[in-house]
């Protein structure tokens, strides 16, 4: 599988985070009971997938660039 240099360097940041997480529990600076604003639907990266996927498709058809369009995470951090 030819990942390529670019692919490898793209993996570096999240891999580094994964490594650090595996070795120690870092104390969260935003406590679980302080996540009220982050849990609000207006703070979600992608509240309506059917809408964002359509718009992303519209741009990908007409533009040369593609990819790296979204984030997951944030939210209430429950469970």
């Amino acid at each position, binding site marked *: 599988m030819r990942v390529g240099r670019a692919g490898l360097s793209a993996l*570096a940041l999240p891999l580094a985070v994964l490594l650090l997480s595996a070795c*120690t529990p870092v*104390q*969260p600076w935003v406590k679980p*009971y302080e996540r*009220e604003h982050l*849990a609000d639907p207006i703070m979600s990266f992608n509240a309506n997938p059917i809408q964002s996927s359509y718009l992303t498709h519209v741009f990908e058809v007409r533009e040369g660039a593609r990819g790296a369009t979204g984030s997951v995470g944030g939210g209430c951090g429950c469970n």
Partner: protein
Amino acid sequence: MDPSHSDHRRAFLRAGIVCLTLAATAATSLASTIAPGAAAPAFQLPSSANTPLALSDLKGQVVLINFWASWCGPCRQEMPILDQLYRKYKAAGFTLLGVNVEPKSVDALGFLKGTPVTFPILFDTDSQVSKLYEVSGMPSTVILDRAGKVRYIHHGYKPGEESEYLDQIRSLMRE
């Protein structure tokens, strides 16, 4: 050796050193005051019954303290189930406290209007009790025995977990 390879090696080595340092410092700060066998910290909070409620008032009863918020999905899911638990065992020396962790109570009160519960709701608006009980997940449940000692701790809620609560409460009531 290709320069980029030794760069990667150095980066991973540095990450490893940071790792070990963090592990060393974390080891000293990991000691927790909320652990099975420890005395439950005392507190007093305003309640839904208009009179403040203190934990010390409940000595002699098995107490389940549930930390919840109206913005937390699993918390909302758990509330009716906790209510069932409360109504079933309150006559037998069990009580349940729902500690709401929101700085403003308006959303919590709105939720309780739609999903009323019979157990006392306490309002920890300045997060003092949440900090005291080292709440590290939403929801969090701490079960205390009749002597006021912490016996069981639960983080999060998954449907079916209430059977564990049931077993633990029953065993504490038999003591």
